[in-house]
């Protein structure tokens, strides 16, 4: 739930539903949110921050399991210990890098792209950062496909990993929305 709330809020903010959200109180405190693109930036930041946090948490769980402890084992299909602790699948192929660390690094870079776009929307790097963000999240789709395949083989689902996957997919749509906004007149009004 700690991750679901910011993730869902972020998804709502990057979706067309953002116009219908009751954000009056927030907009009174932060007038910049009256600009539609600023709402997308806020949503995208929440999504990427969720991915960042949940990946770090996954890395922490991975370390704890290697110590011999159990963290989230269960007898049902939702059993992150079995997934993160499975030595056959819990590292990037041909390396010893845990998947959590890869996600943590990836979401750090995505966070950098989002924050630089938001802080300096008229800089010359804007288009590049949007494209890099889109490319990285598309690359994430292949990793998600591989990890979901692993989960399917194990017959288990890791809730934390799934949250990170959803964050990556949502971040792709976030960058897509940012790109659309960049091509609109609304972008020029950004300060």
């Amino acid at each position, binding site marked *: 739930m700690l991750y679901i709330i910011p993730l869902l809020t972020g998804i709502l903010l990057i979706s067309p539903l953002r116009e219908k959200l009751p954000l009056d109180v927030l907009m009174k405190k932060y007038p910049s949110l009256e600009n539609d693109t600023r709402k997308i930036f806020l949503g995208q930041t929440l999504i990427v921050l969720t991915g*960042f946090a949940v990946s*770090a948490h996954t*890395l*922490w769980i*991975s*370390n*704890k*399991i*290697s*110590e*011999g*402890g*159990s963290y989230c084992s269960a007898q049902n299909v939702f059993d992150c210990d079995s997934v993160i602790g499975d*030595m*056959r699948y819990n590292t990037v192929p041909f390396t*010893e890098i845990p998947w959590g660390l890869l996600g*943590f690094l990836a979401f*750090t870079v995505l*966070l*950098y792209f989002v*924050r*630089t776009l938001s*802080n*300096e929307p008229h*800089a*010359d*790097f804007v288009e590049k950062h949007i494209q890099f963000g889109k490319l990285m999240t598309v690359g994430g789709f292949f990793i998600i496909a591989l990890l979901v395949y692993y989960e399917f083989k194990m017959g288990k689902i890791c809730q934390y990993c799934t949250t990170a996957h959803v964050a990556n997919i949502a971040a792709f749509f976030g960058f897509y929305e940012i790109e659309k906004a960049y091509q609109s007149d609304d972008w020029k009004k950004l300060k």
Partner: protein
Amino acid sequence: MYDDNATARTDTLIKIISLFVLVLVVIAFTTNPIATGVGVGEKVPILEGKIYNGNGWVDYDLHAQFDTDWNEEDTNATWFIVEFLDTDCSACWRDTAKVSDLQNAISSTQWDRAPVQMIAVVVELNIQNHDGSRDEIKAFRDKNDGDGSFKCNAGRSLCSERDGNPYNFPFFDDLDGKSTKDWDIPGTPTYFIIKPNGIVAWSSVEAGNSDIFDAVNGLIPEASN
């Protein structure tokens, strides 16, 4: 020259790297991950496949036998001795008496230490006349000649001629060499003593000339009851 864009990027970069490092520091201080490997103190790699247990070939997963919550005070949990061998390797052939003595010791009613499970992992070294098979594994373990169409010890001896008794512990088929590669085995025979939680307690690769009997007596605790 002053570049506003560069300033924005640098400020953001510093903030995000700070956040990244802060989170990494928290993870580093609150966890103590154990690496996977075959060095003493490392968690052993996967050993999953088919074993011959005297009755037939069945699925086996060494990690499924481990007690991940084990602590040093628990002296009744099962320890593991893993031997990597080749049924055609002369050094392994010479070691058969010693392995048989070890099996007899840990199976004896006078054994007063924590229980021990032995496992042999059979590989096929890439050497002339080293042509293992599942039938040869069975014959080596059970100390018989199978259907008589093969020999052990690189074709020099009948499998029934090896020293010691028939073995009572499982033999793992690694003729394809996958686990041998995962475990980074430099040659055969190689022995490991593994704690009940899957951590390597002793390795013949690191121990040099020290004897496995000494290691067993020195490492495996006396049972508490």
